[in-house]
């Protein structure tokens, strides 16, 4: 079997305040929403107050919408469009949710799920105070089975195109068809790409159903076993 390679890990402790503000960016289907949901629930389970913000301004119809109520029942605030918020503009109107614009005014931790892949973190300019926030971390989620990030060169090119990236999440998987080999091989490539660009690794994400099949990282890269919520949405 493949084995992990390891470099330095991003430290979540270099923060000025105690507040956590993280924006998850990446390709379509890279796992942004899944990481954002899992992170929000992780913080909630630590007893923290969390707001999860769905910031897909282009197509807010395909994102967290269907999971909103379930997530709220789990105790996190979710800013996302729902049936009762829809007012019939379709794609002809700008769909910036006012609550998303002012999300950083909320108390507690803020987890932003930045939709519509290729634009990276650019959408953050719509969130009041985002770039001025000393707490903001921009986290790129990379899946090594995505055609645009399935080789070292492509992953580097993609990370450069994204602009500001503070840390990378290793999230190689193939949905229900994931194997340990695919996960480890893909994540190793992403690690090399991040290393060559000088971007720290945030953590390694593995489907909790593969806990026994895929070993945790051996050194100080945190391994997070995540629960997949997005299959609960139709897309």
């Amino acid at each position, binding site marked *: 079997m493949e084995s992990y390679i390891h470099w330095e890990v991003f430290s979540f402790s270099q923060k000025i305040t105690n507040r956590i503000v993280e924006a998850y960016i990446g390709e*379509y*289907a890279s796992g942004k929403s899944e990481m954002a949901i899992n992170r929000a629930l992780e913080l909630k389970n630590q007893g923290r107050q969390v707001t999860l913000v769905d910031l897909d301004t282009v*197509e807010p*119809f*395909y994102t967290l919408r269907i999971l909103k109520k379930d997530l709220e029942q789990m105790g996190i605030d979710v800013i996302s469009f729902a049936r009762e918020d829809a007012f019939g503009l*379709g*794609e*002809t109107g700008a769909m910036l949710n006012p609550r998303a614009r002012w999300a950083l005014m909320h108390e507690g931790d803020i987890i932003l799920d930045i939709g519509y892949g*290729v634009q990276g973190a650019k959408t953050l300019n719509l969130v009041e105070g985002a770039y001025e926030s000393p707490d903001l971390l921009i986290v790129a989620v990379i*899946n090594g*089975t*995505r*055609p*645009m990030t*399935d080789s070292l060169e492509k992953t580097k090119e993609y990370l450069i195109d994204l602009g500001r990236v503070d840390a990378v999440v290793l999230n190689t*998987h*193939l*949905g*229900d*068809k994931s194997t340990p080999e*695919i996960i480890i091989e893909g994540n190793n490539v992403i690690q090399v790409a991040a290393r060559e660009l000088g971007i720290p690794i945030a953590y390694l994400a593995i489907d909790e159903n593969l806990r026994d099949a895929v070993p945790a990282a051996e050194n100080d890269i945190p391994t997070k076993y995540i629960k997949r919520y*997005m299959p609960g949405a*139709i*897309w």
Partner: protein
Amino acid sequence: MLRIIGEPKKSFVTGNETAAWACLAAGADMMFGYPITPQNEIMHYWTRLAPKYRRGFLQTEDELSAGFTVCGSVQSGKKAFTATAGPGNVLMQEPFGMAEAMRLPLLAIIQQRGGPSSGTVVYSQQEVTLTTFGGNGEGMRIVYSTATHQEIYDYIIKGFNTAWKYRFPVFILGDGYQAKMREPLEMYDPEDKGIEMIKPFPLIGLEGHIGAGREPQHLCNIYSLEEELYEVVMKVAAEYESIKDIIVEYDEKNCDDADIIVVSHGVVSRAADDAVKILRAQGIKAGYFRPITLRPYPHKQLRAAIAKSGAKKLLIAESAYGQLDKLTKQEIFGETVKIENLFMPGVGIIDYDIINKVKSVL
């Protein structure tokens, strides 16, 4: 041909991305398009990929132009395609009609959205009538209704060959859910699967002189007299009828002894497949029938399924208000099996919806 994929490999992708890669692997030279949700990422990915593989893209001023530029491009011998949805599909019916009239090997990917009019950007199966019989002609088209990313990939590759072999416009009918869903896909170069891609050829500007070595190439979409048009339409209709049995595709499960057959297409057939399995486990004799080609429709195969099962009922389930229902009824005219409906226009259908409906009508 240049190998695009290399070793076949599994990728985790959206349906729109699948479509762009499939067109690339199929050797498409050129895409013409105009943005509309939910097909936008076909254009996005094509425009990211095309320069790397020396392929072309033009965003036209509207869907009419996108359709007509595809019509022009294929005449020059380029393997060209477009993608659209909803109101864009309505506008493209005029160029699609031209492709029927002039027998142009056009390929269009349709990702259905809600209707009528701009409807929703999200999802529906409400473009069945439009895609099969839109335009002011006789529906001389081939329509593949896909259900998975693998099918989007496979049928785009097949669709280009169908278009260039038979010279009828070919449609890959997906929907907003398939466009946005993420699932594993095996991408491959057609040659690695033993699929020989038909090389595109020019339809105009041909070698040689008319009358001395070759016949004139008449690519007409207008005629002076009724009789001229009649002759052409009847000839095209006869050619279409003659290839129907070769083109038609369907999927059928558990129909041998079924009391009720669930008829569905596209992404809804995934729910129907699950529903039938669950119903069978509960001792209810349900069957599954799915037309993969909506045009031509597998009417012989559906009639045979009804006959061999002795099913008392068909349940036609669709995310539209009766478009597959209408299509199916006209194709199996004369059958006496009772037809029930589950119409959920513009919203998704899950196994639970079908199970409940089956139980309520049996």
